[in-house]
């Protein structure tokens, strides 16, 4: 698959050496890492240096009150999806590392009430002020 182009073995080795990283899994839609404990700031800094583009972050509500956060990165022609998990529905912000994370995190804060620690401005982005934070959690 052409998905792999741009993701070298040296890159993979450095990604696997990040704090909290787990094994990489190859799927049809690119590489996946299920790493609930990963240090997202270290990951974002590493990806930023490697000219990785943060495509988006997907928030998925969990029944235990936490939120899975899937960081979708594009490196060259390759896609890397890293699934992290909040603690107490909070996680470190990567907005100070990558500009594009600013709005992405604000939106997830609106919809899933995730507290991004260190985010410069978590004011409502898409949420109407009449609605409470985290209204996407109610299915």
């Amino acid at each position, binding site marked *: *698959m*052409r*998905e792999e182009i741009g993701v070298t073995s040296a890159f993979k080795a450095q990604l696997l050496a990040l704090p909290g990283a787990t094994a990489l899994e190859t799927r*049809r*839609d*690119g590489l996946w890492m299920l790493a609930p404990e990963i240090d997202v700031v270290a990951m974002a800094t590493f990806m*930023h240096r490697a*000219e990785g*583009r*943060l*495509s*988006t972050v*997907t*928030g*998925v509500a969990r029944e235990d009150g936490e939120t899975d956060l*899937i960081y*979708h990165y*594009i490196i060259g*022609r390759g*896609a890397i*999806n890293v699934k992290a998990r909040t603690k107490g529905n909070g996680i470190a912000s990567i907005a100070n590392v*990558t*500009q*594009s994370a*600013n*709005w992405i995190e604000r939106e997830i804060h609106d*919809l899933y009430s995730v507290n991004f620690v260190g985010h410069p401005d978590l004011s*409502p*982005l*898409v*949420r*109407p002020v009449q609605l409470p934070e985290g*209204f*996407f959690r109610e*299915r």
Partner: protein
Amino acid sequence: MPYKIPIGPYHPSLDEPYKTIVHCKGEKIQGIDIDIGFNFRAIELLAQRRNYIQDLTLVERVCGICSCVHTLTYALAVESVAGIETPPRAQYIRLIMAELERLHSHLLWAGVAAELIGFQTLFMEVFALREWVMDVLESISGNRVNYAINCIGGVNRDIIDTAAVRAAICETRKGLEKDVVPVFLHNPTVRARTEGVGLLTRDEGLDYGVVGPVARASGIASDVRSDQLYLVYDELGFQIVTAREGDVRARVVVRALEMLESVRLIEEALKRMPGGPIRVPELYLEVPPGEAVVRAEAPRGEVVYYLASDGSDTPARVKIRTPTFVNIPSVRAMSVGQDLADMPLIQAALDPCYSCTDR
């Protein structure tokens, strides 16, 4: 003395509601605040309350201009989780519709840009040309806006009269080659109005994560059509269009040349389109538990869909990331130090879609 100018959420120069607060000193822009969310419809949440078939109709309403790419990406995501292979003819029809949509979207943008530059004659030329494309879309799908062409496992309608489509596309190509593209590439008025305006460097583009023609105009060679195997772009020899300057003119040039590439892809696809079924035979499809991330190239850039299934007839999660959502924040980098009078042109050069952005 610094001052602030609020523009929007409702303003004659804006097609859709959003708000910018421009911080100026004299005529020079010092900073900009952007507010979105005026079109928020919670489509992702609604998609988790409807079944897979109903969601096709829903996601088609994410955007009025690039409705086809949303159903396409959604269908690709469902097909990826369910392990469905679409028939080759369906892939060609999907590609033709996607490129027709890009063509009409770029022509719409070219018309708006011409009007903003103050070039009314070009605006009329472009919109007359766009009607050829709209007629083709209508003749294939029966609709001018929401085409309802994609279904899970293929497409709903076949392209029967390929000769008529080819003739209309030929007329579009002639108009593009004779008038529109040369004007955008060489006309001194267009050059004077766009050169050096709204600069976005490659590094800034990477930091903001911009996509589509905005990224390609800043020297970032990123296009899902060449980066990833989807539909039949590789069979048709897709050629990516890039520029290095990163200004409004570079965005104009990239879009103008992309229109010619879209025309070539449509003509080539019509020539090579194989026979056979246009969708899988099963009417009711089971989607097993699983998840998938699918990307496709919309007229404004990369669209991302994340879909998770729990095995029921309703998706557990549908995440939609539209290109304008990542492109809009880069206006900050483009506008600082620019003249206030260039603000409408800088914003228009993004080809923003706020309906998409807010979802």
